[in-house]
């Protein structure tokens, strides 16, 4: 008797029964597709309950910057604080309706969605409708072959339950919490569930020209089972950046509905 593969047998049965979609065999990795919100932020001193909760990541360490970049970073923070104190805030990219870029979008100021498919993991952050694509089981490019952008070129693969991603090609002015970097920034991520509804993204930034050592921060998300991401269009941005880099606002009805 001619051997018939299990897949062909199932396919034939499905055709006979008129079933267009049949259950796929279980995947080797968890499908954590869905909407999430930022979770486990610690403001001020962590409480005993927060310290005991193993789903809440520890407080992130400061960026281990080399002296030159550290001065640039501290000067920038001081300028932001002083401008805020004077009521003349320095304009961030948001004032120009620009999204976070990587890795800041993974901080998920607004809800974030993971879509896991066979060849790609797609991540969408609601604010500014930010999208990044992690291409699975592909070789990474050389940094010099990637045009710098907001989200860079990302590849990934599964290591058991963990999605491992590698991202390069981030514009130098797209910064994580104002920390400077060069064009050689490499972002390594380990994304995995730590509880049935809690996801962690352990983000390691490598950039030997500015960092003394790799810098790892961990972001946690909680599943939003019934939430569908909303649209976000920067439809009527009344705020703008003036010639001095200060955030200003147009006052008065702009006519948008």
């Amino acid at each position: 008797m001619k051997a018939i593969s299990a897949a062909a047998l199932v396919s034939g049965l499905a055709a006979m029964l008129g079933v267009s979609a049949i259950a796929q065999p279980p995947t080797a990795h968890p499908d954590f597709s869905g909407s999430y919100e930022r979770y486990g932020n610690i403001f001020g001193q962590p409480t005993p309950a927060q310290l005991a909760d193993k789903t809440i990541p520890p407080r992130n360490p400061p960026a281990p910057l080399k002296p030159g970049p550290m001065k640039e970073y501290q000067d920038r923070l001081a300028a932001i604080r002083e401008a805020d104190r004077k009521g003349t805030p320095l304009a961030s990219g948001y004032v120009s309706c620009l999204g976070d870029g990587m890795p800041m979008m993974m901080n998920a100021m607004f809800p974030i969605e993971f879509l896991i498919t066979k060849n790609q993991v797609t991540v969408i952050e609601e604010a500014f409708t930010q999208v990044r694509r992690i291409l699975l089981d592909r070789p990474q490019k050389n940094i010099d072959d990637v045009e710098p952008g907001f989200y860079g070129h990302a590849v990934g693969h599964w290591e058991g339950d963990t999605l491992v991603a590698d991202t390069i090609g981030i514009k130098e002015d797209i910064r994580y919490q104002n920390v400077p970097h060069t064009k050689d920034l490499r972002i390594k991520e380990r994304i995995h569930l730590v509880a049935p509804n809690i996801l962690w993204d352990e983000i390691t930034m490598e950039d030997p020209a500015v960092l003394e050592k790799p810098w790892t921060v961990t972001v946690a998300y909680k599943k939003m089972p019934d939430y569908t991401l909303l649209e976000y269009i920067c439809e009527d941005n009344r705020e703008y950046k003036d010639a001095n880099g200060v955030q200003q606002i147009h006052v008065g009805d702009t006519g948008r509905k």
Partner: protein
Amino acid sequence: MKTAIVVVAMLALAAPAFAHHSFAMYDHTKTVTLKGEVTKFQWTNPHGYLEIDVKQKDGTTKHYSLEMTSINMMTRLGWRSNMIKGGDLVVCTIAPLLNGEPAGLLLDVTLPDGRKLEPGVPAVNTFKRTPPEE
């Protein structure tokens, strides 16, 4: 009052909100209470706006533009675009724009039926509330 209770309850449950935009250009040391007529409730991102006309003591009308938060945040707090309509008489608590222009950050609004809604301004407690001027 039902909606007001829902909104306040949702606010209490919400995680501390982060801000994309700085609100440092608004006065954190005092609030102003405005009673006016809505000319438009603008449901847009990056922020919603409430446009109101406020009658002055000399009989003239002064228009104010009041900035809110992202309509996505407001939606998650229970807001809908039809909650305020043109012609509604409202009472607004605002942090005025520091440069003196007729604008402010809307901290809360009381609707004609008494419902008091908050648009979920991040770090709202950093704005010092002062009594309404008579």
